[in-house]
């Protein structure tokens, strides 16, 4: 699963195992992966194949036992926790299956969260939030609380939050897993727009074959290794 050009994301010889009940359960035993800048990759596979672990490692929230992980110019495997947090704040956005919005914050405040980590004025933050709200089709719903929004709308807020700091990489963990088909298609259209028009590199973990069709290519993971790759027609 390598590319000839210099990849944006490069995993080499990655090993990862979890200790469960005193026994080490291997997840990856030398995983390699290369994703070029601006790619839209769907990762599919059965439960326990390592999809979520892969996404967690790409997000820098889970560590590698061995191997290297480079994203852009950053070697995540050599970073400490504080450095990885700073890296996430500036380089990555993440979209969760269950949106994970903070219930006591309005849509605009949820979206503004990553901007609190940047040296921006209140006005600059406001302008950015308004811009992404417009981008995801939620203009005018700034003051609405998540509990009063549909699943599709909440996921739009989740996407807006992920892209508001303009990261190069977007990680999506089953972004349509909790949505009906219509809402799911709207979300996937939006991801495709972000990839094609704004040049975001997207890695999306999904169980949904129809969702995978929106990606440029689909990688199938099984027992900790990529077993198949399909490219979009």
């Amino acid at each position: 699963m390598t590319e000839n050009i210099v990849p944006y994301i490069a995993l080499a010889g990655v090993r990862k195992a979890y200790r469960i009940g005193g026994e080490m359960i291997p997840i990856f035993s030398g995983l390699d992966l290369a994703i070029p800048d601006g790619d839209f990759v769907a990762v599919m596979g059965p439960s326990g194949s390592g999809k979520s672990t892969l996404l967690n490692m790409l997000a820098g929230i889970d560590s590698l036992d061995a191997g290297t992980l480079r994203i852009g110019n950053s070697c995540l495997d050599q970073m400490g926790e504080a450095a990885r947090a700073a890296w996430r704040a500036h380089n990555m956005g993440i979209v969760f299956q269950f949106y994970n919005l903070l219930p006591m914050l309005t849509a605009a405040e949820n979206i503004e969260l990553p901007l609190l980590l940047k040296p921006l004025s209140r006005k600059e933050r406001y302008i950015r939030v308004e811009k992404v709200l417009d981008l995801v089709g939620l203009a005018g719903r700034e003051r609405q609380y998540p509990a009063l929004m549909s699943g599709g709308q909440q996921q739009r807020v989740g996407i807006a939050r992920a892209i508001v700091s303009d990261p190069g990489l977007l990680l999506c963990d089953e972004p349509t897993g909790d949505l009906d088909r219509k809402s799911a298609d709207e979300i996937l259209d939006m991801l495709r727009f972000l990839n094609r028009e704004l040049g975001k590199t997207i890695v999306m973990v999904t169980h949904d074959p129809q969702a995978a069709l929106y990606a440029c290519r689909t990688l199938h993971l099984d027992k900790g290794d990529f077993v198949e790759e399909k490219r979009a027609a």
Partner: protein
Amino acid sequence: MTFFDLARKNAWRKPLRTVLLMVSIAVAFLIYGLTESFVNGTQGAAGASDDLLGVTSASGRTQPLPMAAMSRIAANPDVGAVGYVTRLRGFVGVEKNVVAISAADPDLLMAVNGKALGLTPTLINAVAEARDKVLVGRALAEAQGWVIGKRVTVTAFNMPRADGARDWRFEISGIFEGENAATDTYFMIARYDYVNAARARGKDMVDAFVVRPLAGVSSGTLATEIDALFANSPTPTRTQSERQFLDAFLRQYADIGLIVTLVVGAAFVTLLMIVVNTMVFAVRERRFEIGVLKTLGFSRLRITALILAESLFVFFIGGSLGLVLAKMATMLAGPELGLVFSGLVLAKALAIITVLGLATGALPAFNAMRTPIINAFRTR
């Protein structure tokens, strides 16, 4: 939205719980504010000076000293001014309506402590008009409803007149205000010559001398010198600063400071346990969201700051409410209770609020800080 707004909204996500926490904090600081105000204001201790010295008998404060000792004290070159005072305690009307009278030479008292008491030349002239004139402190005048010109009869507990009666009649010629709110003005100033001439015994004796050291002179050193002066005399002295004197006076009855410390300490320890317990649960409930914030790029330090800010917010709102109530209570209670909610009390309370806010937030903040994101996500 600011970082503080985020902390504030976190604190308000369960309003009832937060309000109850704030109420318990408010009650604790109400207790603190009242007890500290009591200690601060009792017997004018808040306004007591370290520079003003009181010379009493080494045998006890109730033992008199001869008036003649004043000239020996005044001869010390370090003495700026010296006066004398004899105390008369009695009641007006009913026995529980106790008042205190300091019989002094008004001019000398003015020189020694006129500024702190708020004495003016006008007041001194007024009391000089006749021997039975008195000056009344503002707190006492307000509590009794007395005005200038009113005649007052004080029935003495400890000082009979030469004719055997215990009633002392005075006419109020002025009201002294005290330098500030902390000054004790719940007493009267009478003329020593009047009291001394009319009393049955103890003539030409005084209860204490009041000494003001010269500027730049150490009051401690001067106190030692004065006591050395009378060390081998029939009436050895004990010289203390006004503050030391009042502290010692209060300790005759009880160590109020210790009692207050114990009461407030118990209240705060209980409060600390309640708030820490609640905060730990509140943060544990939000472990998943803390994981989300960390995923968005919030560092461990920021998460720690967020929890501490939330805890400080709850403490500042609750504590401020308690202190406002305490301030109002001291104002409503009136001066006779001696409650003085000074800037010092407020400053100490704010410091305690900050320390308690940080202390109660520390454990949940530490837990939130060290929780790995992966573990946080498993809690849903």
